[in-house]
């Protein structure tokens, strides 16, 4: 082992008795300390799945393997990514945040100065508006839950309340919008209502305790709790206050939902109530009739999850799942339920209700309302069929 290689003394020849069941790693020093830990080599399959552009490898997504995880925190290394033109390698000493437009004083902030401001921390879900969009397909996609719904993750974000910086700049009257822009090779830009920014947005500097990682916006990103991923602009360099939205490409051509009547929904910011069972889930196998521990995730951009119901008969009957404490607003809630499987084919579902009373819809209801060309904001109930052999797969039911 690394430990004994580094140890200056020689190991004695082992003299373990034949019946001793103790494994070899109890009989030789283990490896020494590390300055920054990594997952076990036995968990190397637990990775983000990358889906990128052939000619432009920094354009695409990588998804969180939800089926491999438990609890509510997403390890930062597995937090989903969505980049349009790769991850910039930003020198924090050269980075600035400019606040300008309809403000009394245009101001520029360097990162070291922002680190001196009062901060706020919040455990929050971040979900891409395009998450789960395979759900709009006519046939149920046959992929693990993370490769289908994995554009959602949950972290503790810490940073400066944006209201503090906006107050310092001094917002002019009749200022309703702000345009946020990133310092990446896409110069990602979107428009946001100032009311939201003043209410609860933060300029995040830390994720899960440590400084942001490059792919999540190092050194600065905007966090708008409960609102879709694209609005949480990474590598934030500029905030321009304005009386009008910009009508940027990413709020017109994309991140709008075309309805069957040809009209499109614009400024759909809130990620609505959603849940899914991560275990058992697509691709998993039940060994036979027994008690199974159903475990899943629920969240809502509107606030707290109030209730998650689980059905083990394809939606005919529902029972309340147990919500794991703490149940926090706009944060992941882990739900659990015991399920006694009798060995017969059936369909498992979960249904979330949030504190505003918003209920996760059945797919048929969502499609009836939105058609199948909306692309974004798919939050329908997820159904897993279990066959008599115990194989679990995604179905529309």
């Amino acid at each position: 082992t690394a430990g004994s290689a580094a140890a200056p003394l020689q190991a004695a020849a082992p003299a373990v008795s034949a019946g001793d069941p103790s494994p070899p790693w109890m009989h030789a020093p283990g490896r020494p300390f590390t300055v920054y830990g990594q997952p076990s080599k036995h968990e190397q399959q637990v990775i983000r799945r990358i889906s990128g552009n052939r000619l432009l490898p920094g354009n695409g997504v990588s998804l969180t393997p939800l089926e491999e995880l438990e609890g509510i925190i997403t390890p930062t290394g597995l937090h989903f990514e969505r980049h349009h033109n790769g991850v910039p390698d930003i020198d924090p000493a050269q980075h600035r945040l400019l606040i300008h437009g309809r403000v009394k004083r245009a101001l520029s902030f360097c990162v070291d100065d922002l680190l001196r401001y009062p901060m706020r921390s919040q455990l929050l879900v971040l979900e891409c508006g395009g998450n789960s969009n395979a759900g709009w397909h006519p046939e149920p996609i046959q992929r693990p839950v993370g490769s289908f719904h994995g554009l959602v993750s949950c972290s503790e974000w810490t940073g400066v309340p944006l209201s503090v910086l906006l107050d310092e700049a001094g917002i002019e009257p009749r200022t309703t919008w702000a345009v946020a822009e990133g310092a990446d090779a896409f110069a990602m830009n979107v428009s946001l209502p100032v009311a939201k920014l003043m209410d609860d947005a933060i300029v995040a500097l830390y994720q899960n305790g440590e400084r942001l990682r490059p792919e999540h916006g190092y050194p600065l990103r905007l966090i708008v709790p409960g609102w879709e991923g694209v609005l949480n602009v990474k590598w934030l360099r500029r905030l321009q206050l304005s009386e009008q939205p910009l009508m940027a490409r990413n709020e017109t051509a994309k991140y709008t939902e075309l309805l069957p009547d040809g009209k499109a929904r614009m400024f759909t910011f809130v990620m609505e109530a959603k849940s899914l069972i991560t275990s058992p889930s697509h691709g998993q196998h039940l060994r036979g009739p027994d008690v199974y521990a159903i475990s899943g995730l629920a969240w809502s951009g509107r606030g707290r999850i109030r209730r998650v119901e689980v059905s083990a008969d394809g939606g005919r009957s529902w029972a309340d799942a147990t919500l794991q404490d703490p149940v926090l607003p706009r944060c992941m809630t882990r739900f659990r339920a015991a399920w006694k499987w009798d060995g017969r084919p059936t369909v498992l579902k979960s249904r979330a209700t949030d504190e505003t009373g918003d209920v996760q819809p059945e797919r048929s209801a969502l499609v009836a309302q939105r058609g199948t060309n909306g692309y974004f904001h798919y939050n329908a109930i997820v159904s897993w069929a279990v066959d008599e052999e115990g194989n679990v797969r995604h179905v529309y039911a």
Partner: protein
Amino acid sequence: AEALQAPRLGRPVDAQEVARWDLSVFPDGRGLPAGRGNAAEGAILFRQHCAACHGAGGRGASAEELAGGTEPLTSPTPDKTIGLYWPYATTVFDFVRRAKPMTAPGTLSADEVYALTAYLLYANGLLGETDEMDARTLPRLRMPNRDGFTGIDATLPPR
């Protein structure tokens, strides 16, 4: 918003410096730079910088189609091209200037961006081949799907 005691460490920035940082182009044309271009010029630039990903004439390749859409937005398989879907022509300028070409974004001159914008509008049947695009003409171009959107979590600006 809470009243937090905070240091005031923001450095005041003057209008010239702001202008150098500012990449935004609004629907009313605010933010458009001096310069000009037309589709004929843009066609050449498009072949040079864009067609490798977006295909000849912007018909789509490894990257999405930018023109040539035929299926209306009410079709089961709609084409959400610039001509059929985008509400504002200024968006094309804003986006191309900041993000294009993907291999060297933000490196085109103002004239080049006007020309490419003109070309994309021309390829979508919204402009003549030699119609000039500049800070005055571009915001005036009314896009076919201008009124195709409904604001959900925020109201749309008044028309």
